[in-house]
């Protein structure tokens, strides 16, 4: 019992991380809470489904989906969010409105039937600590770690990454040293979109694509990002692990329908105790007198 809980706790954490990475990256690097994250995630899912239906080979379809979704993310910023940049409330409402439009448009198109699903990347299973784990879920763990490492490397070691990080911490100083804030925000929206697409391609095959996932994904992304602390990737990883295992433990020992309450409770407790999240430093900066 314990081994399977450990294994599936890790899988759950990896799923949470994949879902939250896109949102956390955009929020951390451009300061814009992209509430249309759920919509972008599902857009990638349906796009991949239709590309595959058109007969494209799997990997070309996946790469194309990631690229187009990144363009969508950039377009969302460039066309709409740029006009309300700075007014936090309007940013949140604008992105939330885009999210609703996308999700409900899919529903209007009739994507409500059960035939929408993505194929597994790799079939087959193997057993470790005598719990059987299928390749798809192990791939999710690997990809999640890869993305987290890439994100950390990108933001701390590459020129563009550091520029984005600088922009996130203090926009005016970053502007003063010549970083164009609109370019930075478009870039972070694009990468956020790409990460959402990767998450969709990895996680959606586990079940059926349905529209209400969009709202769930947004809630998960919010919980993990807030819990982990805004711009710290290490905080995000820690938060995913805590939440992932908390969910699996509650559903194993108590009852599964407490699962949802777990990450909502997590947000409330952490924010009340340490407003800037586990490892985040953002709030302290804001508090300076």
């Amino acid at each position, binding site marked *: 019992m314990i081994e399977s809980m450990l294994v599936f706790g890790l899988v759950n954490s990896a799923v949470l991380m994949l879902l939250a990475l896109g949102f956390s990256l955009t929020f951390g690097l451009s300061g814009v809470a992209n509430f249309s994250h759920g919509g972008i995630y599902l857009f990638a899912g349906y796009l991949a489904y239709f590309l595959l239906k058109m007969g494209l080979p799997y990997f070309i379809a996946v790469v194309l989906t990631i690229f187009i979704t990144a363009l969508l993310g950039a377009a969302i910023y460039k066309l709409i969010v740029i006009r309300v940049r700075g007014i936090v409330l309007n940013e*949140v*409402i604008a992105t939330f409105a885009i999210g609703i439009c996308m999700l409900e448009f899919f529903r209007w198109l009739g994507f409500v039937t059960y035939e929408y699903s993505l194929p597994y990347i790799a079939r087959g299973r193997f057993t470790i600590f005598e719990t059987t784990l299928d390749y798809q879920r192990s791939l999710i763990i690997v990809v999640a770690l890869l993305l987290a490492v890439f994100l950390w490397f990108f933001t701390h070691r590459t020129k563009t990454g550091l520029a984005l990080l600088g922009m996130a911490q203090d926009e005016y100083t970053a502007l003063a040293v010549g970083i164009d804030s609109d370019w930075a925000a478009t870039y972070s929206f694009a990468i956020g979109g790409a990460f959402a697409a990767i998450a969709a391609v990895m996680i959606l095959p586990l079940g059926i694509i349905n529209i209400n996932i969009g709202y769930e994904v947004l809630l998960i992304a919010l919980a993990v990002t807030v819990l982990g602390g805004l711009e710290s990737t290490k905080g995000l990883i820690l938060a995913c692990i805590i939440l992932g295992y908390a969910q699996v433990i509650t559903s194993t020992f108590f009852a599964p329908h407490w699962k949802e309450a777990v990450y909502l409770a997590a*947000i409330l407790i952490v924010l009340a105790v340490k407003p800037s999240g586990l490892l985040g430093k953002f*709030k302290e900066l804001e508090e300076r007198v």
Partner: protein
Amino acid sequence: MKAGYRKERIDRGIKARADDIFAISSYREILYLTGPRILAVLALLIYPLLTDVTGAYWQTVAFIACIIALLTLSWNFLFSVGLVSLGQAYFFGVGAYFTGFFDRTIGLPPLYSIPLATVAGAILCTIIIYPVLRLRGIYFALITFALPLFLMRIIEATGYLGGTEGISGLQRLPGITFSLYVTVVIVLAVTFIFLRLFDTDYGLVLRAIHDNDMSVLAGGLNVQLYKAQAVFIAAMPATFAGALMTLHYRIVGMPAFAVEYSILPLTAAVVGGTGTFAGGVLGAFILVPFSELLRAFGTLRIVMYGIMLLFFVVGLPEGIYRFAQRKYFQFERIVPLEEKADEK
């Protein structure tokens, strides 16, 4: 526009800039100033009587518009104190469940259960949200977004207060006209009270907290306490709305915490103009009937609703009310073009 003429805009504020005396020159200007306000109030008061003209359905739509107007008023009050709430459903749901609780356990008649639920709900909301009050900006918004969903899960998991089935068969309210009249009167009263409150010194303190809570702290005021009082005052109209809606539909269930009760008032506030009370009510009375009209479009309705929301947030950030107010006080005169001095 004939050639050789141009429009000259004269910003003639009707009230000359003076602290305590009103310099208004003529009845015409008094009428001009108060006209729209009186018209709006009269329209609201007469509308419930036109049941046979408009039909019961549009009365219900007006009733829901008033309920959302109350939630928007509460949202605007919180906004003027600097607290951006994405979770009006939290106050609404608590008010609703208190009424359901009183009605089912003690069997209080609606006359007592509604005011009691309003006050008790407001107190409970303030107590739960108190530890989180010192958060600012997006953090407070995220918490309020999660609170109603959290309470919904608690009720769903514990099965307390009727669990997923909710409590049905509550006592009946006299009828749609009664409910509509009560909500119209309450909406007008709350708008008037909130406007008056913000002109007093107490209101000034609340506005100061919105501006810069550090210097209010340096002024010797316990900011946390004033924020808690502000949440209590703002919660009252919202819990009242929850209580009345529950008894009108005689059922309270988990949908009382539905995300829609958070999003609709937020949109109405933005469309109407954030921070203005009259703007919020105006926004609600534009939004709810409009989304009912869109119902003929079936599932496309929410897409158009989203597009409209996007249009107002991006196109008109100041909101209809402020836009109209600005336009209402501006006059334009056709003035002949001055010949260029050098031409002569």
